[in-house]
């Protein structure tokens, strides 16, 4: 078990971040330098600034999907927005950001309530949306017939991360933020994680290990769309 703790807790974080950063930069750089003849699709924004604004709108609101498939939009948009919120929420796990929140006028009780309330709700709701997306993939013929292993794998991986996350929040065992903050501070300063108390929690270890796998998986899988969307819309709306 010590070996697992060392590998997942002490080595994988560095590898995952490095793989993600290098692969994403490489990917975006290769996309950027490819020749790109115009293949305009109308209505196209008249200026490149308007085009950029449209791309941001697409990335934030999924406006084309809203027009194309309203049912999917509700769950896909909900899924991504909550995912973004959960990502932001995790800053409290990595470091003590409570001070910043207090200086913004929040009370300690308010922070606790927000974390337990919105964080808890988000964890449950996103799990439901993920299940709906998975069921949709299995049930609707036009989606099922184009679904491959990779599509399921991405969803199942995220599902497993969500479940372990929810266990930590709602499970009987008390989850101690101070311990994870200490642990991440050690990681950030490249210190020794030997005996880090946070890693004694096996659910946490599993949760983090899966999350790191996901991070590494992004540049090599369909999840790459998270970078692609900023390019593909620009391409066809360019007059």
């Amino acid at each position: 078990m010590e070996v697992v703790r060392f590998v997942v807790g002490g080595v994988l974080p560095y590898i995952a971040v490095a793989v993600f950063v290098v692969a994403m930069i490489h990917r975006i750089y290769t996309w950027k330098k490819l020749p790109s003849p115009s293949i305009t699709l109308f209505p196209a924004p008249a200026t490149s600034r308007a085009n950029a604004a449209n791309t941001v709108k697409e990335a934030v609101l999924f406006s084309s999907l809203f027009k194309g498939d309203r049912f999917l939009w509700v769950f896909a948009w909900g899924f991504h927005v909550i995912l973004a919120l959960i990502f932001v929420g995790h800053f409290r796990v990595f470091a003590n950001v409570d001070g910043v929140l207090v200086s913004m006028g929040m009370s300690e009780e308010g922070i606790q309530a927000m974390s337990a309330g919105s964080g808890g709700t988000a964890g449950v709701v996103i799990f439901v949306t993920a299940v709906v997306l998975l069921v949709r993939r299995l049930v609707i013929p036009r989606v099922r017939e184009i679904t491959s292993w990779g599509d399921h794998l991405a969803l199942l991986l995220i599902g497993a991360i969500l479940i372990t996350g929810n266990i930590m929040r709602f499970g009987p065992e008390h989850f101690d933020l101070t311990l994870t903050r200490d642990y991440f501070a050690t990681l950030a300063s490249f210190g020794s994680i030997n005996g880090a108390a946070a890693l004694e929690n096996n659910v946490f270890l599993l949760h983090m290990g899966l999350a790191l796998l996901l991070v590494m998986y992004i540049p090599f899988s369909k999840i790459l769309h998270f970078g692609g969307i900023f390019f593909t819309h620009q391409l066809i709306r360019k007059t």
Partner: protein
Amino acid sequence: MTSTAKLSSEEIKGQVVDAVKAIKDGPRAMRMYMETCVKCGTCASVCPVYFGKSEKRYNPAERTDIIRRIYNKYTTTSGKVFGKLAGAEDFDPEDIESWREIFYECTGCRRCATYCPFGIDHSVITRKGRAILDKLGLTPDTMAKVVQVSLETGNTDGAGPDAFRAAIDFLEEEMKDEHGIDVKIPVDVKGAEYFYVPPSGDVLVNPEATMGVAKVFHVLGMADNWTMSSKCFDGANYGLFTGSDADMKQDNKLYVEEAKELGTKTLLMGECGHAYRIMKMIMEKAGWWGELPFEIVNCMEWTAARLEEGKLEFDKSKNSHPVTYHDPCNFGRSCGITEEPRAILNASCADFREMYPNRSDNWCCGGGGGLSAMDDIIDFRMEISGTKKLEQVRETGATYIATACSNCKRQLTQLMEHHEMQVEVGGVHDMLSRSILINGKAADREEYV
């Protein structure tokens, strides 16, 4: 088309794999489409073909995945290591025959791109598939024939200069009958300001559009300012449809050279969506032939601008029947020309009706991407790709569909006949031709064929 010689399986596989591997080096859109799809199925729900028949082979994402699986197999590490688990699969030369069908079951209408959350334009991949077939000499015979005729004669109908002149004489006589005066269609006039290039169908099959354009010039007192060419009277360019950039350029070059030869200031493209798109959005943008001594304008834009100036008058009672407009994909989605045809139809028809959805959201007629010219797949066009359009037309209650594309016209005419609908199909300037006032009088004619 390069060769028609029979290739061995190994040769076919080699060429296919090389062509797919080349996607890694761009164009950017093509490579990004290989790497960005999340398989959400939205494209299928907005595709006219998949609407007509919801089978896997008609699913746009599946068609693109045919290429993507080979791409993953040969260019990605995950594909090489994990194979099918990473969406990678080797190309089987046995599949090439089915490719000849599958890549000609997409109308290239780009409706998928309008609704895809990532703006993935599956027509780009369809064209790639067709380009691979073309290089192998495996373009379907009906399509290959059109390209061959077009490159040999300068037009897709294979008509020579004499046939063209005879057709123009006929149109001038018709207009004389209609109005009792001479309305000229100048041919091969050097130094004319405008050079009008319609699809050849608008001279030989549905010639009213060309009469309409001639009448506009006449009314404006500009009958001496424009010309047609007895060599170049067909903007249609099937290189776009077979995926052959070389053929597309060769076909296009003839027209650009003729425009230069005539010393024209404005290349006035006719009611043909892909012809205008190639000139305006592809040739001019990419600068194929360097700086051009003329500007490229569509005849609908031009006429709509004259309407705006209040220079044209109409007797709408000549077009009292309900008229609807079908936005050709290449005008609506690919060139942004949507309001101009409506301005012309509203000015010349008493009962203009929209079909829904319209403009850039319009459904394809079912004959896009050159399919309209393929009579060997007419069952597919009538019973599958055209079904949504049939439904849309029915809902309008119109008895005339105006559209600005010879391929749409052919498909719609066949579709209406096939489904026993009493609906006439024609152009936008056709409606103008029937109701425009010349010396205060509209055309005197009862029957139109």
